[in-house]
């Protein structure tokens, strides 16, 4: 069996599962945010169970439109807060205690290898970097899970991606996943598990692994996953007292497809409008003038991402006419970045630093684009209208490229500075 099949077998009390099997699984962590929780609460109330299945196994995180962007958003956040208080939800994190959902759950040690996590947010697939099975659903599924602790799943076939070779100095996990999306296409892994493996992955720090599994859904995947290793276990040991269930794929495991990718010549990648799979290497980007650069989100709002940006921006100033917006992914990351001097470097370069929030990634607030404006963003989607006006454009790249492009005023790399 593959790692995905082993975790699903464990959570459905079976010895073996195969692709196509419909199974009922127990959920170790159920997750929702300020956009998806209100509908899930309605569903929970309609079902009529007096209590949630386990108040320790539900995480409700206000992060999308918070700090509240308008009255309706404030109403939704209030509904979520009141539900969390009423049901004594342990993992409800108010502004100032948390940050972006997919960043703070690993940060607080709430997901460990072998867990099964279901979230009412498509980027729930992020936790696969910890060797967990995690997948996004809608609010109705989540409302049912809050009541019962269970859901049904179809066991997905697995596509394995093997990365081999040595990465060039400024190439990151973001470039690996963008290149992979370019190879697979936006529906190349629909209903599939994507298993990321090979020597390049085993050398990658956790932050970059999270970036990779985070974007598995951009190829349509049900989950993205990486086998846990010493790097994973060291990360988890500092944050959780629970004992991890370390699963790895058997040598003879069945894969639907194995794709090998040589990374030695891989350049930083840019996803052009309006698809994360519309990628080009940096050298073929051409002259793309920018109005705004955004560094943050569940994809690239981690401390290592801010360090990357600071390494590029140290002693430099962003180009006239460009706005650089940085939203650290969590309160803790923000504090650490201040302690390390990262925030000071970003401020000196001319960045504006905002609160941990999904903010402009989904066109919510804190950096919306006007008609005809162009942004380079470290986020995960560049669909039409994603960050603002339907006639604005979003280009996706790593924090390294984002920082360099902010200085250049157009898309470029640190070697051009």
């Amino acid at each position, binding site marked *: 069996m593959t790692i995905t099949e082993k975790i699903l077998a464990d959570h459905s009390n079976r010895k073996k599962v195969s692709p196509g099997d419909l199974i009922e699984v127990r959920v170790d962590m159920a997750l929702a945010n300020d956009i998806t929780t209100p509908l899930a609460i309605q569903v929970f109330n309609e079902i009529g169970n007096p209590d949630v299945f386990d108040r320790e196994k539900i995480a409700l995180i206000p992060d999308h439109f918070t700090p509240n*962007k308008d009255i309706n958003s404030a109403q939704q956040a209030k509904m979520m807060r009141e539900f969390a208080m009423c049901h004594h939800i342990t993992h409800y994190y108010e502004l100032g205690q948390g940050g972006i959902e997919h960043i703070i759950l690993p940060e607080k040690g709430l997901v460990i290898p072998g867990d099964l996590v279901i*979230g009412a947010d498509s980027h*729930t697939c992020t936790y696969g970097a910890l060797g967990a099975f995690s997948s996004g659903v809608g609010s109705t599924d989540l409302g049912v899970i809050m009541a019962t602790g269970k859901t049904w799943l179809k066991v997905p076939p697995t596509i394995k991606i093997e990365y081999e070779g040595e990465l060039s100095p400024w190439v990151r996990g973001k470039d690996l996943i963008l290149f992979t999306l370019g190879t697979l296409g*936006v*529906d190349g892994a*629909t209903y599939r598990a994507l298993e990321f493996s090979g020597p390049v992955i085993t050398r990658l720090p956790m932050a970059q692994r999270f970036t990779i599994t985070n974007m598995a859904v951009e190829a349509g995947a049900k989950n993205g996953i990486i086998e846990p290793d010493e790097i994973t276990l060291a990360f988890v040991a500092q944050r959780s007292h629970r004992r991890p269930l370390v699963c790895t794929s058997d040598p003879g495991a069945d894969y639907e497809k194995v794709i090998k990718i040589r990374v030695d010549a891989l350049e930083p990648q840019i996803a052009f409008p309006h*698809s994360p799979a519309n990628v080009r290497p940096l050298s073929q980007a051409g002259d793309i003038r920018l109005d705004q650069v955004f560094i943050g989100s569940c994809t690239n709002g981690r401390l290592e991402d801010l360090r990357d940006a600071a390494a590029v921006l140290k002693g430099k100033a962003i180009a006239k006419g460009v706005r650089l917006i940085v939203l650290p992914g969590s309160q803790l990351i923000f504090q650490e970045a201040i302690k390390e001097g990262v925030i000071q470097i970003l401020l000196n370069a001319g960045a504006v630093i905002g609160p941990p929030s999904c903010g402009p990634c989904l*066109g919510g607030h804190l950096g919306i684009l006007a008609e005809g404006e162009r942004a380079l963003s470290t986020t995960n989607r560049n669909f039409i*209208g*994603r960050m603002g006006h339907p006639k604005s454009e979003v280009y996706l790249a790593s924090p390294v490229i984002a920082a360099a492009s902010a200085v250049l005023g157009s898309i470029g790399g640190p070697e051009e500075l």
Partner: protein
Amino acid sequence: MRIQGTAWKFGDNVDTDLIIPARFLNVSDSEALAKNCFADIRPRFMDMINPGDIIVAGKNFGAGSSREHAPLAIKGAGISVIIAEGFARIFYRNAFNIGLPIVESAEAACSVEEGHVISVDLSTGEIQDTHTGRRFFAKPLPDFMRQIVEAGGLVNYIKRS
């Protein structure tokens, strides 16, 4: 369960940001969401269609976010069924959970043109284009999924059973 309505054609990869842009997600009820359904690509879609009309689309319909607001907006606008070459995973689940039937048929998605009146039989999977007379056969829905649709969604289905 037979449905008849006028076809509205869409292309490939219609994502959830196109179905309902995130700036309109500060409300959750289907009627309010419906007003902004396809706001950026077909403004006032709800006013253009008649209740019971049908969406016919290409590959990977509903890609992107997990927002259940997307199928809710479509259902609220009055659409009775979506026929597509294929659906994104989370959208597929969400649509059934809220009681919006969806059917996969590459042949129908390719052949049916906008404005044609078509009928869909959910129990047999038969799709008929009344303009051309052509018939297509999608895989029929499994019983329990048809029951979810008939109950009006997963919650009612659970309460019933």
